[in-house]
Every structure is written in C-alpha cells, then in structure tokens.
C-alpha cells in the first residue's frame, strides 16, 4: 500500500527533468536520491510493514518551520545540509538493520556522501560571511531535535527490526521533504519545475 503510493509519486519525480546553472548537482541529486530511497522502500516487505504498524511513532517532522518562504538560498542549503548530514549519521553505523542488503545501504550512503560534498562546495566559502545563516540556526536545532527523537526511539526499541522499519519509512518522508526544499531553491533559480510542482505536494500531504 505505502509502497505503491510512493512508487507512483517517485516515478513522477523521476520522469521530470530540469536544467539549471548552479543547481545542476541538486537536480541530479533529486533523481538519484529518489532512486535510492525507492530501492530502500522496495526492500521493505509489506508484511513487515503490517506487523510493525503498532510500533509507529510520530516523530514530529518540523515541516512548518522548514517550509517558511522567507528563507534565502543560503539558509535553505544549510537546512538541507543538516538534514542530509543527520540521515548519513543515522545510517552509517547501522549493522543491526537486518533485512537490508549491504549494497543498498552502501549505495544510499554513497549518494548521501556525494551530495553532502556538493553542498559543502556550494555553501563552503560563503558560510562564514553569510549572516543569513543565523536565521537557519533555529531550524537546524529543530532538525537536530527531530533526529534526536529518532535516535532515542531506536534506543528504546533496542534497535529491533520493526523499529528500523518505522525509521526507514520516516526517513523516506524526510527525504521527500528535502526534495521539496530543493525544488524551492531551484524555483528561485533560473528555471522552475512547473509541471511537477503540484502533484507530489498533494500526494505528500496525503501521506503526511
């Protein structure tokens, strides 16, 4: 059920294509992370989702504060960087997540690492001078708190496979959310994704 829904949305996203100037890398990232996160989900058995439903928890993804329109590009990049960094930290040490093929995890981590490096390239030289990053501090803290909740949950559930399943679904949500951020950056760039803009958002709301 969730799988099919995600698959359709992600296929729509995959079918889109954009050409930017600066944010070329981010556009690629959009497609590639979609692919990898899709694979992550595809390895989830629907039966495992079923049996893990009672373990669900609302991690309170800070959607609203992240989605505020007044962020500038530098701030949004900082927020994005924080998100990806935290996802990387979450999965880098996982040896206890059974049911995942190591190659999948490797690909996912590779992808994240690559995008983190690109983001650091984009933000690096400006980060210290940019006073706009001040505004994003609060959001970074909220994102950190969100991931703290996820870590605490995993610890309290003793890193069971059901707990990891729940976390994986949550991270997919988070990634989707990150893609919305990217779209925002790209919208403020040269071109915009008009066609794809509406469909995934509507779908995301229905999932969220």
């Amino acid at each position, binding site marked *: 059920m969730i799988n099919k829904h995600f698959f359709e949305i992600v296929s729509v996203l995959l079918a889109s*294509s954009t*050409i930017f100037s600066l944010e*070329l*890398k981010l*556009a*690629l990232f959009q*497609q*590639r992370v979609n692919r990898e996160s899709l694979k992550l989900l595809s390895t989830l058995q629907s039966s495992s989702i079923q049996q893990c439903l009672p373990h669900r928890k609302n991690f309170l993804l800070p959607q609203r504060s992240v989605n505020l329109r007044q962020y500038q590009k530098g701030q949004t990049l*900082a927020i994005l*960087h924080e998100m990806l*960094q*935290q996802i*990387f*930290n979450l999965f*880098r*040490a996982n040896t206890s997540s059974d049911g995942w093929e190591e190659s999948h995890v*490797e*690909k996912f*981590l*590779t*992808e*994240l*690492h*690559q995008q983190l*490096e690109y983001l*650091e390239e984009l*933000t690096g030289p400006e*980060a*210290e001078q940019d006073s706009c*990053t001040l505004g994003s*501090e609060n959001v970074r*803290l*909220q994102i*950190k*708190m969100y*991931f*703290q909740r996820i*870590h605490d949950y995993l610890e309290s559930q003793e890193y069971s496979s059901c707990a990891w399943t729940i976390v994986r679904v949550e991270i997919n949500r988070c990634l989707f959310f990150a893609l919305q951020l990217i779209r925002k950056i790209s919208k403020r760039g040269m071109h915009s994704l008009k066609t794809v803009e509406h469909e995934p958002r509507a779908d995301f709301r229905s999932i969220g």
Partner: protein
Amino acid sequence: MFSLLGATTLMLVAGAPWTLPAAAGGANLKSPENVEVHIIDDTFTLRWNGSDPAGGNVTFSADYQVPRNDTWLKLPGCQSVTSTKCNFSSLKLNVYEEVKLRVRAEKGNETSPWHNVAAFTPFEKAQIGPPKVHLEAEDKAIKINISPPGAKGGVMWALDSSSFTYSLEIWKNSSSAEIKTKTVYPRDKIYKLSPETTYCLKVKARLLPRKIGAYSPVYCIKTTVENKLPPPENVRIDAVNDIYVLKWDYASENTTFQAQWLHAYFKKIPGNNSGKWKQMPGCENVKTTQCAIPQNTFQKGIYLIRVQASDGNTTSVWSKEKRFDAQLQSVLVPPTINVKPTNDVSLRVFIGAPEESENKSVNQHYSLIYEVVFWENTSNAERKTLEKRTDFTFPNLKPLTVYCVKARALTENERWNKSSVFSDPVCEKTKPGSTSRTWLIAGICAALLSIPVVTYVLKLFLRCVRYVFFPSSKPPSTIDEYFSEPPLRNLLLFTSEEQTERCFIIENTNIITAVEETEQIGEDHKKYNSQTSQDSGNYSNEDDSNDSKSGEDFPQQEAE
C-alpha cells in the same frame, strides 16, 4: 501633641524595617553579578562575581527551568557552593532545548534576590573542545587518527560526530619553520614529508556553519628512516571503452603490485575503517604498472584507490590515496535504435538501452538526452534533433522512400558533458501514401457495392428489351393471379365441390373432361354428398360462369 507623637512613632515603626537591616550590619545580600554560562563539550560551568565584599560564609545556589515545566528545579552541583563557579555537567539536559537559570547568594537564613540568566540553548552556547590526536610515523608521511571532541557517550556532539571537519597545522620542529595548514579527515595521512625529521602539529575541529573549536595540544613525532621500497606514485585512472585502466609510476622493476579501493564516505565515519578496503579485481599481484578493471566494478559514487608495491620480501607503504569519481570518468555506450514505418507515411523511432550482457549499464546512472541524426538514404542532407523522449515519430515524410536514423546518448547535465559514439545507422522504407491507398480502398468498395446494382439494372433493361422486342404469349400476370387464387386457396374444398359441380354439370355439354374425372372419384361421391350439399348451396348462388370456367381451368391448372 499626642497625635504628633503617635504619628512620629508610626513613622519610626514603619521606617524600622528599612533602617534596621542597615543597622544590623550588611545583612542585605546582593545577588551575584556577571553571571555567565560556559559550555565546552559536555562540561557545563556557571560563573559569577560575588557582590559581597565583606566575605563571610556566603554560599550560592542555582536553579534551572526547562520550557515544558514551569517550576524551578535545583541545579545539581550548584547548591550551596562557596566558590564563584560551579559545574553542573551531571544534569541530563536536552541540549537543543532552551534552558533558564537563576543564581542567588545565601548567608545563613538570608537569601539575595535571584539573578536570572537569559534563556539559552546549550548547543548554541557550547564551544568545541580540543580533539584527541593519535599519530603514526612513516618515512615520508604521518598517519593521523583524530577522535572527535567530547567524551565518548557525550550528549553534546552525539548527533554530529561525523559532521566535524578538522583543520591541522604542521611545521618542522626547527627554527623558522613555515606552518602549513590543511583540512584533514579523521583518518588521514600527511604526505610529502622528509624522512628522519621531527614534525609538530596541532588540530582543531570545526562544525559547520560557524562553530570553530579550540586547538588540541601540540604533538610532535619523528618520521622514520627512508624505506627501501618506495610506494607507487602518480596513481591515475581513466576510462577506456568499457573498462577502467589504473596506472601508476614506479621506478624500479621486478616488483609486483596490488591495488585496493574504498568507498569515500568511510573517511567521514570515525573509527577504524582499515578493514573496509577491498581488493581491486584484475589488479592482484600484477607485474606491470597498470591494470584493467571492468567498468561495472564501480557503480556511481566516489571512491579512493591505493596501490602498494612488493618485491617478495618487503612491501612498501601504501601510495597516496587517489580520489576517483566514477561518474566523471565513465563512458557512455551508444543506444540501440528500432525504427518502424507507420501508416501515415512516418517513421516511429524507439531508442532503447544499449544491449549489454550485464544488467548494470553505465547509462542508467545518468539522465540522458539523445542526439538523433536523420537523413534520406539517397541524399546527404541530415537533420539533427535533440530528443529527451525514447519514443517519437518523424512525420510528413515521402512515401516509399528509405530513410536512415542514427543516435548517440548525451548526458543531460552539462556538468558531466559526456557523450557516446554514434550508434550504427538503421534504415527503413516508409509505407505508401495514405491518399492513394484510401482511393484504392474506396474504389474497391465501390466496385463491390456496384456489382449487384449493375446486375439489377441490367436485368431490368433486358426485361424491357425482351418485352418490347420479344413479347411473350403469356397472359398478364394479374389475370393469372385472379384465376389461380381460388383453387389454391380452397384446394380440398374445391375437389369436393367439383364433384358435386361435375355431377351438376354433367348435363352441360362443355364439361366432358370433368366427367372423366368424376368417374375416378365416383366412389367418393356418396360420401361427400351430405357435406357438399351445403357447399353446393353456397356455390350455386354464385356466378355459374365463374364456376364453369374455373372447372375448365382447373385441370389445366393442375397440369401446370
């Protein structure tokens, strides 16, 4: 008078509380001043200036408050402290949440007013402490192993342990040495050093965006004696067709080499990752300074490659790790084309994935566009288009002509700027025009439909001709109808009638034939008599001429 006295007494009494403490000698405690919170890694300290100059047994206590709770709780480690600072690291706080503190001075039973510290978020206030560094010397390099700041299991940097970037300063331990600054990974090597020299270095951690930590203490180490077997140098990797070629430089001969690779992201993960290096396929114990690697070994991603030399007895240290971005280097393969002529004189083109025996093609990692070249086989005029779709049509072509198509794949993203070679041309002939064909079909249908029409018309015409030129002796059909009707209708009845009629008509000289017949059925005469008597009655009323004529005609009709 008395009222005046009373009023003064009242005033005095009222004034007493204000004056009395002063008179008691400085029992009015002032709250602490310049209260500051210092947080370094997981160490939380509160510092202030005691405002009481007289000294004495003044102690200080502090409280804290978290946003969820409205009550002030006692700050552990800061209760009744005599010095002007206290350490409250034992408090398990959520470092990302705002916290409020307040401090006051106490002396005996008296307390000063609270001094409120502005609300702060521990994580934001925290400073990064010095990281721990472990060094290992080689002949021309130093291996470093940096542990992130903060204690293990510490809360402050729990979520950021992989996010630190480290900045290192290194210099020779001699006078007037220049200091070099580098950004290093937690597990890294510093190359291009001189053997048997002492180097000193210090490291500081940095957390994006704005947190910069303190420098670690200075560590010094001496590099070893120069190795007999130097490591390979100038490691480079290039893509050639569908393989990668790894090359390096090496001075001496008679050495075997081996190569290893690692996912680049492991460098970001603290801890021991030396076991994660994997052997490079096709590069185990090679004698030459190069080796070939199948392209599907490296999926897209960033990798690190290192090479080691060995001469049987000793092995060299590993070469400098070469960073390799598979995507930048891989080569696109030309796509396969399928062309089908469609009904409306167009050619439909399908661009497919290249045929490869292995599932994992390089092309699938990129979003591709295709440059399609299209020309008429006889002419040289080429039409070039860039297509994103893999299924498209060239419309409005000439019928029954041969056209050829060839295509190559390009990365959509100009940053990669990759292109494959052109595929082999595929030629197809277009189908005949639809206008002539529709006419043909229409003509056939018309012809088919017209055959019965024409035959019918001819038939009529022939009949007309026959009528005019070859009239028949037949009476008109209407008369036939008129006569033929009664006998056909009342066949059974008529036979019985006829018998009676014949009996009746025997007297008439005309009906000789009828007589012959009645003899045949004479036996039945008596039988039918009673029946037909009614009938004869019916018929006798009718016109006699009709009956006689019908009687005459009947045998004729029967014969016919």
